């Protein structure tokens, strides 16, 4: 009799603990969204011009490139890897696309055909990088760093120090035009997000990536083709970097290796602030969307607030640290890699 009472009490405690755990997880998954909303409210009250239609379009425009980059990296991070190739590869794609369309440096004028061409090049390079990591058993961190350096070198070689100014009217329209009031670059980011969402939530590929990130050994045991899945992640990453390179060239109106600078770490920050675990298996593209907007809103508001440039980076860092502390699950049982 006593034994039965004891067993049912343990069962209740366990159920309560599970309930608490599930409530906590639900709260943690909502934390990034709450943080974003709180930031928007605070900055709407304190920053002149923040809550305006002009600034809304600004935020959409400024979030577009970081969002596509972050979406590319989300799948890499979800499976527990890291990739740094975007800096060099994105700069290379931006430099090359500027040389392939109507420009100030040469007579090549491939027009819109240049875009799929350079995106394919980006996918090819990323596939090579992936193969080195998967087949060569080399850490993705180091492989991608090497690939980034190589592509930076090729980028500089491509325009030999004098960047090509883009004269193609298509690029001008892409930079300045809008559809339904939303800038074209933002539409590209929205379409990329929808594809990423479908990939993650409506395909086996998305489930496999989560499984690999959660526990690669178990994923292998249940018959998931680890190498093939990883390879596809690098194809997706290459696609996103290619799009980002083109978008960068569109935005600045010229092609230089600088297009790739400051792409990687802000993107990783967006992914993590959004609540995706760096060790893999937790989070996803919706988190990344929120994370990208948190980072963009902070950057935007600090200028609108007129924060001195001498302390701006420090303030930015503090806000991001605070956001990460609130949005990423942490506790004594969590392994921090």
């Amino acid at each position, binding site marked *: 009799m006593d034994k039965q009472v004891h067993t049912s009490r343990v069962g209740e405690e366990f159920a309560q603990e599970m309930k608490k755990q599930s409530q906590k997880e639900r709260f943690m998954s909502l934390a990034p969204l709450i943080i974003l909303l709180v930031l928007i409210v605070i900055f709407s009250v304190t*920053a*002149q*011009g*923040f809550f*305006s239609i*002009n*600034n809304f379009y*600004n935020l959409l*425009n*400024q979030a577009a490139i970081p969002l596509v980059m972050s979406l590319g990296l989300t799948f890499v991070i979800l499976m527990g890897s890291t990739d740094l190739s975007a800096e060099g590869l994105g700069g290379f794609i931006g430099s090359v696309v500027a040389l392939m369309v109507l420009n*100030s440096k040469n007579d090549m004028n491939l027009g819109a055909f240049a875009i799929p061409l350079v995106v394919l090049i980006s996918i090819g390079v990323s596939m090579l990088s992936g193969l080195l990591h998967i087949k060569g058993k080399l850490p993705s961190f180091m492989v991608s760093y090497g690939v980034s350096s190589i592509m930076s070198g090729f980028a*500089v070689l491509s325009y*030999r*120090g*004098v*960047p090509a*100014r883009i004269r193609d009217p298509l690029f001008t329209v892409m*930079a*300045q035009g809008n559809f339904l009031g939303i800038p074209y670059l933002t539409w590209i980011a929205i379409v990329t997000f929808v594809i990423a969402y479908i990939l993650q939530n409506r395909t086996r590929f998305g489930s496999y990536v989560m499984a690999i990130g959660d526990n690669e050994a178990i994923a292998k045991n249940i018959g998931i083709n680890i190498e093939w899945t990883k390879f596809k992640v690098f194809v997706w990453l290459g696609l996103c970097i290619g799009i980002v390179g083109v978008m*960068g060239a569109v*935005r*600045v*109106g*010229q092609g*230089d*290796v*600088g*297009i790739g*600078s*400051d792409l990687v770490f802000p993107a990783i920050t967006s992914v993590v602030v959004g609540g995706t675990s760096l060790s893999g298996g937790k989070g996803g593209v919706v988190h990344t969307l929120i994370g990208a907007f948190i980072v963009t809103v902070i*950057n*935007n508001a600090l*200028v*609108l607030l*007129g924060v*001195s*440039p*001498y302390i*701006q980076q420090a303030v930015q860092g503090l806000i991001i640290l605070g956001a990460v502390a609130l949005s990423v699950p942490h506790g004594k049982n969590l392994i921090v890699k």
Partner: protein
Amino acid sequence: MLLLSGTGITLMEQENREAKKMEGYKMKRREKAAMLSIAACAMLVNAAPVMAESAEPLTIAVSMRSTTSEYHMQYVAGAELFAASLPEGTAEVQMLPCEGNDDKQINDINALIASKGDNMILFVDANNAPNITSIAEACEEAGVYWCAAWNAPEGILPTSYKYWVNFQSCDAVKQGYDIAVNLFESLPTPGEGKICVLEGMLANTANEDRMKGLNMALEEYPGIEVLDDQAGDWDTGKALNITENWLAKYGEDGIDGIWCACDDMAVGVVQALTAKNLNGKILSTGVDGTSAGIEMVENGELACTIANNGWLQAGYGCAYAYAAKTGVLDTETMDDLHRMFLTNGYLVSADTLADYKATFVDSQPEYDFTDLDYPIAGPMFEE
């Protein structure tokens, strides 16, 4: 602080003082010029026998930050211009880009010295000022004559070394002042209006000096109001985002001009303005004289830019090092002016655009590298 400092006095006063000082220098220089010119003319004549002694052509090394910078590539072109002025086949140019890495700059120079010995001369734009000390020691030990531009640590001077022939810099304070005055005078109501300030990288020597120049101009133009001051880190994308944010904050009619510290950032500024059809209505500025900067001046989008003239800096830097190597100059008897001087930039505005393009865009600049006084715009230090 190695450049002329104008803190506390107006540029007019400073220019008057400088003019007087320059008169004095000119008197001294006239006396020395004749001697120096005769010696320098002998340089090319001496060159052939010196080169003939060595089977290998002389290596003219150019160590600079990056091949991505159009301005840094002007250094290489300047060194090539100088090499072309020497007898054919006696010299070859080798560039050593460090891509922003201090260690790489020092290691590359050491590696080249190990390979070439003293059969080389060197022109350096130090990635960071402290690099100069290591480079000076390496060159002193190997007997390599060299020149530097822009960056050197405070108190470290060529006069303390035998092989460090000279140190030159553009007057960045004057650059900041000149582009500011040009912008203020180009506003819809000249001398009056609201501007935003886009600095380069904080704590960078050139940026700080350009800001000093801006502040001097602001003191002279009380009708100019600075709305905001942000740092764009010399980056086009950051400049673009900051300008978009300013337009959202102050509205399209709230800004009259944007003082921008370099051409790369000005590209971003103009892109943001173009998206709102404000290019040419809100004027900006630049420094460096890149092809994009020149194009924007031509389009009426920039009030002006200043070409630092990397051809002249590196070309004459190499000419000085070569003159010392061939015995035409003796560093122990050279005066301070020839060892530490300022060079002039070229202010490119609507008024000077045609001249600039004729000299620097449509053709390569031509210099008489035997006239070693030519690049000197003034002394680096006030006496």
